[in-house]
Every structure is written in C-alpha cells, then in structure tokens.
C-alpha cells in the first residue's frame, strides 16, 4: 500500500459512502434521548447507594464463617485424634519387637521395664486403695 493508492481509495470510498454519512437519525429516535440518559444515570446512582447496604449484610455472616473454620481447624479434639493416628498401640508393639530383634532392647531390659510398669501399677492400686480407704473413713 503506497500513500497515493491509499488516497485514491480513501477519496473514492468517501464519495461512495456519502449517502450513508449524510443520513439523519429520525426525530423520533432523538426525542427524549437525553432524559432517558439522565434517568439511567440516576437509577445507576440509586443502585450504587443500595449496594453497600447489601454488602454490609454479608460482613457478619462471612466473619462468623471464618471464625468457625478457624475454631474447627485449631480444635484439640483433632490433635488427640492425630496423636492416636500417629502412634497406635499395635505399632508400638511392632516397634518393640523390631528393636528387640536388632538387639537394642533385650529381654532383660524389657523385663525391667515391665517390672517398673508393674510397680507403678501397684503404686496406683495402692493409691487408689488409699483413696478408697480414705473416702471410706470419711
């Protein structure tokens, strides 16, 4: 495209499109046009004024939802469940068996541990009995 060719085409199309260019919009189309625009603007302003009220209604609802989700996520019940999930009793027994096989934990130590546990259990029983006796005296 050179400038001369463009000018020729431009002039030719300007001439051909003259009738469309000079066509007038009918009076009927123009009547009340600016009034309608004004009405639309004022309606838009009313909607914009109403919008924050609608928006404010959602604020407490959203706040409650956020707080509820935080409470659920930080709940200790879930922590306990997680702890139980990490170390179930059967897994502990398996681990002891593996350690015993490796020689890290021998039968002697195991027996000692069991004895200690037994002693502790006895202590608990005594304490319980003591408490029971005490409560019986009271």
């Amino acid at each position, binding site marked *: 495209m050179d400038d001369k060719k*463009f000018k020729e085409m431009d002039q030719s199309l300007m001439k051909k499109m003259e*009738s*469309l260019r000079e066509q*007038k919009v009918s009076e009927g189309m123009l009547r009340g046009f600016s009034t309608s*625009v*004004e009405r*639309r603007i004022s309606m*838009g302003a009313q909607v914009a004024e109403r919008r924050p009220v609608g928006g404010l209604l959602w604020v407490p609802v959203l706040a409650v939802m956020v707080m509820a989700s935080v409470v659920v996520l930080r709940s200790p019940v879930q922590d306990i469940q997680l702890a139980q999930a990490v170390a179930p009793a059967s897994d502990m027994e398996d681990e002891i068996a593996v350690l015993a096989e490796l020689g890290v934990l021998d039968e002697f130590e195991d027996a000692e541990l069991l004895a200690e546990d037994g002693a502790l259990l006895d202590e608990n029983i005594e304490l319980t009995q003591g408490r029971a006796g005490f409560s019986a005296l009271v």
Partner: protein
Amino acid sequence: MDVNKIQEIELIEKARSGDTESFSALVELHQERAIHAANALVGNMEDARDLAQEAFVKAYENLDRFESKSRFYTWLYRILANTCKDFLRKRKLRRTFSFWFGKEEDESLDPISRVADGSKNAVETLENRELGFAMQNAVNTLPFRQKLVFTLRYIEGLSLEDISDSMNITIGAVKANLWQAGQKMQNLLKEEYHGR
C-alpha cells in the same frame, strides 16, 4: 482552541462536579452521531439507541478519567465501540442458542430501512436502499476492528487523527486497517453487482 471545544470543556467540568444538566447538554450535542455510529456497527436502530444511551451513562460514570487533550466525541466513540462489541458478542451467543433451540430472532427491523429517509422520490429511495443494503452487508463481514475504523472514517466522516485518537492506535495503523477494509469492501461490492 475553537469555541465548541471551550464550551465542551466547560460542560465537562460542570458535569464532573455533579451538574447533570451540563451533562445533558453534552448528550444533546453528541446524541445523533452516537446513534448513527452505533447503528452502523450493530445494524439496528433500536439497539443503536439503547447502546448509545449506555455509552453516555458509562461516559458519565468515568468522566474523571477523561483527559481534555482529546475531544469528547473521540473518547465517547471509544466507549461506544466497546459497548457495541460486547453487545455483538452477546447477540452472537444468543443466535447460537436460538439456532440450537429453534427460536428465531426478530429481524424485522432492518438497518437500512432508514437510509433513504431523505430521498426525493421512490426510484431514488429504492436505489439508496439497495446500495445501503449492499454496503451494510459488506461492512458486516469485516472483522470488528476494520469495521470500526471503516465506520468512523466513511460513515461518521472522522479525520484519520481523530480515529487514531479514538482507537488509541497510530495513524499508520488506521491507514493499514482502512486499506484492508477498503480492499475487502470493493471486492465484496464487485461480487455483489457482477453476480446479478
């Protein structure tokens, strides 16, 4: 600076401070060309009127963004073009749905029916209407950007500088788009008349 531009700037300043009467005066200055351009882009006078109103409302809401370096109508054309583009996209979707669900769009309002409103006699009216139809059909086949540039230049009579300003593209780009659109239009019109 010409008197019209000074008057326009005053009206815009007043409208910015909330004076709706000043904005109405601006609307009255540009309403005809806005409807005219919208009609050329969407091909329906009723829709064109509605879209022109929508463009004015958007212009009012964004008046703070208008820089007085350019003329108000070039800025308005940009808003109008985007409004029409959205409308055409939605209409295309609507037509696709209508096609699938068997409903037909109301095509009774032909865009060219008013082309010959100012004609002196029936023959002239018929010729103008025929030419208008052919032109409008050819314009409608153009991609939106070319259609817009073509409309602004040959139907609205804007200068190349104003089109460049309105579309935010260089004058070289305006010429390139016009050249491509012009070539397509000439080919389409040749086919139209040789095919008869």
